[in-house]
Structures are given as C-alpha cells and as structure tokens.
C-alpha cells in the first residue's frame, strides 16, 4: 500500500532533495508540491535530475488537498508553525523540516529564534533523530526533523555521554559545512565571487543549533550538557564534517572502551557507520564518502597525553541532515522498514 504525501515549500534545496527520495520510495505516492513563487512551473525546471521521474508542476498552497497520509513542511521557521497548527487538526501526520518544533522549551526557542507563535503545540512534537527517539517517532503525529549541524554533532557525541566517558561541561564542536546549507535563496554572502574559496566562520558562538544540541545531549546525560559550537562555511556544495573535542573523565580510557560505547549505542541504527580504519586512505569520516546518501560516518581518536577525545562526524546536510532523515522518520511513523527507499551508498570517486 502506497501512502499519499505532499510537500509544502518544495522549491528549495531541502524540498528538492526530499522529493528525489520520495519519488524513488516504493511506498510513497507524491500528490502535490507547493511553491508560491514557482506555482505553475514544472518541478523539473528547478530539479533537472528528476527529468523522467515526474511531470508535476508546483501548485500554490491554497490548492493543497490534505486528504493525504503525510505532509512534509519545508518552510522557514515561524512560518511552518502556522501550517502545523492548521493541519494537525485534520489528523494528517506531519514531518516538519523547519526549526519550529525542535526546541521543547518556549523560552529557549525565543532566545534563539523569536517568540513561538504556537507554544501550546510544542509538547506534541518528537525530535526527529531516529537514532535517539525511534520508539517515540513511531507513535508521533508531529515529528520535528533535526537541524543538519545538530544531527552531525549529536550523533557523534551522544554515545560518549550515554556511557559517561566525557566531561559534559565543556564540549567543543567545530563544523565545516557546504554552501547548500544556506538554502536556495541568495544574497551577497552566497554570490560566487564572495563564496568561492571561502573558509568562513560565520557564527563563532551562539549558533541556533546549539539549543537543540544541548537539549538532546542533556536529555541523554540527565543533567546540563554545555556545547560550544562554531561552524565554518567551506568550499563544498554538500556535506558537513563536525569535529568534536571533549575531555575524558578517566585517564587511561582506551580505544576499545569507545568502540564498545559506539557499537552499543548504534546497535540498531543502520545508517550510522563507525569509521576508524588504519588500513585505508579513508581512515576517518569524510564528507566525500557520505554525499548523496543517508549515512552518518563517525570516527574518533584518543589523545592520551591530554586525556582528550576527538570525534569526527560527517553527513550530507541535505540527506541525513534534512530530506533523507525526513524519509527515515516517515518510515518509522508508518511502520515501515527504517531503511526503505534510503538504502544506497554515496558516490565514489566524487
């Protein structure tokens, strides 16, 4: 049985990537794709790789038919919340790719974004990283897909916190991210002569994703976790590499202790691969190895002299960081195999 789905705000990079996976999914029937700016335009004009896969045109959201099984929202924060409010009442399952329902606490949301337009709905949302909330997602009507940077950092750090291996009070995450993360809208900062060749620290402290990272890791720890996160825009179109630094709680912690912690945490998580291989060119995670796939590759190294651990975590920001993870959440919400429609490797060479 195929489930009918529609995508609101389908003309951006997130919506386009989600559509790519949805069109190939054996249990999904794509019904409508909305865009105000591109209403009436063939979808393939913006997504040329989908030629031959769909002949649909974008429609304005006023034509949206909610007699469907699932609705994906690929809208800016604050705008998305209004649609969630409107459509939750119809009973449709909603997968929101905006930030509006990631943060449980309305005051924290206000600190990093603005006043929440519908704080009464916050308790209805489940944070959408399946590796952390698989069972809750299965029962949810509203899933808030995690941010891309947050996904890479949380997946890399959560097992160490769960196992009590690191000092939770001073975790540092340094991320490198490709240009597609800034979306399909453009300004001077994304203009080619300005963006080309850049290694730009664009938010050294207080990045919005810090809120969801600390929320999720604190939930695992059972106490406050502090994460300083600094992202850098680098010369890639897709991909994130987050390098996380933390102090080990116990001097003499061995590689084997960390292997056990990661294997235990991800024993039921098919999209997390542990990468720490002495015997290959690709010894640690690299974005090149996950681009185009829903995998998160995670590796680590202990610095015994300083009793420190360095974790490398990489994802494709548009796949595991948004569209792919949204499909993974959909699969769980509808009782399907978590891997359905997503089980494919990236490209090599790239």
């Amino acid at each position, binding site marked *: 049985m195929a489930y009918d789905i529609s995508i609101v705000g389908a003309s951006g990079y997130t919506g386009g990537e989600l559509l790519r996976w949805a069109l190939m999914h054996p249990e999904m029937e794509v019904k409508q794709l909305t865009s105000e700016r591109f209403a009436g335009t063939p979808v393939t004009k913006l997504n040329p790789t989908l030629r031959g896969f769909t002949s649909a045109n974008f429609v304005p959201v006023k034509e949206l038919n909610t007699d469907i099984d699932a609705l994906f929202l690929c809208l800016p924060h604050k705008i998305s919340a209004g649609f969630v409010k409107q459509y939750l009442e119809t009973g449709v399952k909603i997968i929101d790719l905006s930030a509006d329902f990631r943060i449980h606490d309305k005051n924290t949301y206000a600190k990093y974004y603005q006043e929440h337009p519908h704080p009464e709905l916050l308790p209805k949302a489940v944070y959408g990283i399946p590796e952390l909330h698989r069972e809750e997602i299965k029962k949810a009507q509203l899933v808030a897909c995690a941010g891309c940077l947050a996904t890479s950092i949380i997946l890399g750090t959560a097992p160490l916190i769960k196992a009590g291996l690191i000092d939770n009070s001073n975790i540092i995450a340094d991320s490198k991210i490709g240009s597609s993360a800034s979306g399909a809208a453009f300004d001077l900062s994304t203009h080619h002569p300005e963006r080309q060749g850049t290694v730009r620290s664009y938010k050294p402290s207080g990045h919005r994703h810090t809120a969801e990272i600390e929320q999720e890791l604190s939930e695992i720890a059972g106490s406050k976790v502090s994460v300083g996160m600094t992202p850098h825009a680098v010369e890639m179109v897709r991909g994130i590499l987050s390098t996380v630094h933390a102090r080990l709680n116990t001097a003499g912690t061995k*590689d*084997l202790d960390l*292997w056990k912690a990661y294997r235990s945490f991800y024993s039921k998580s098919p999209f997390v691969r542990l990468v*720490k*291989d*002495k*015997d*290959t060119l690709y010894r640690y995670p690299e974005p090149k190895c996950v681009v185009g796939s829903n995998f998160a590759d995670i590796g680590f190294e202990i610095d015994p002299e300083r009793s420190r651990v360095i974790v490398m975590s990489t994802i494709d920001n548009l796949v595991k960081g948004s569209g792919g993870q949204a499909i993974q959440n959909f699969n769980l919400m509808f009782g399907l195999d978590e891997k359905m429609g997503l089980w494919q490797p990236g490209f090599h060479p790239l």
Partner: protein
Amino acid sequence: MIQGETMSNAECPECGAQIAQRAGIEVGEIISCGDCGSKLEVKSVAPFGLATAPSVEEDWGE
C-alpha cells in the same frame, strides 16, 4: 577446516569487532580487521584466537 568442525568467531583485540574464522586459515597468518584495519596474527585455530600482529621491526644490519 576438518569436516564437522565448527567455525567460530574471535574478537579483535584492538576494537572488539567479531571476526569470522575463514576456512583453511592457519596459525601465523596475518589478517586485517574489517572495522579498524588492525593487522592481526592468528594465534590458534581451534579455538580461533587472534592477537595484534607485531610491528615490522627495522634491522639495518649493524
């Protein structure tokens, strides 16, 4: 392997990965762990046992 003998797994001493015993494998063979890439020496075949292989030692003939 002798007919009827059960093939078993051994744990990589470096990363803890389960490594399956390949038919015909012999004591002294050097194999790689598929997870961490460590070079491992087969110390026994019944039961299957592995140890981290010694690093190549340099001898300049002095």
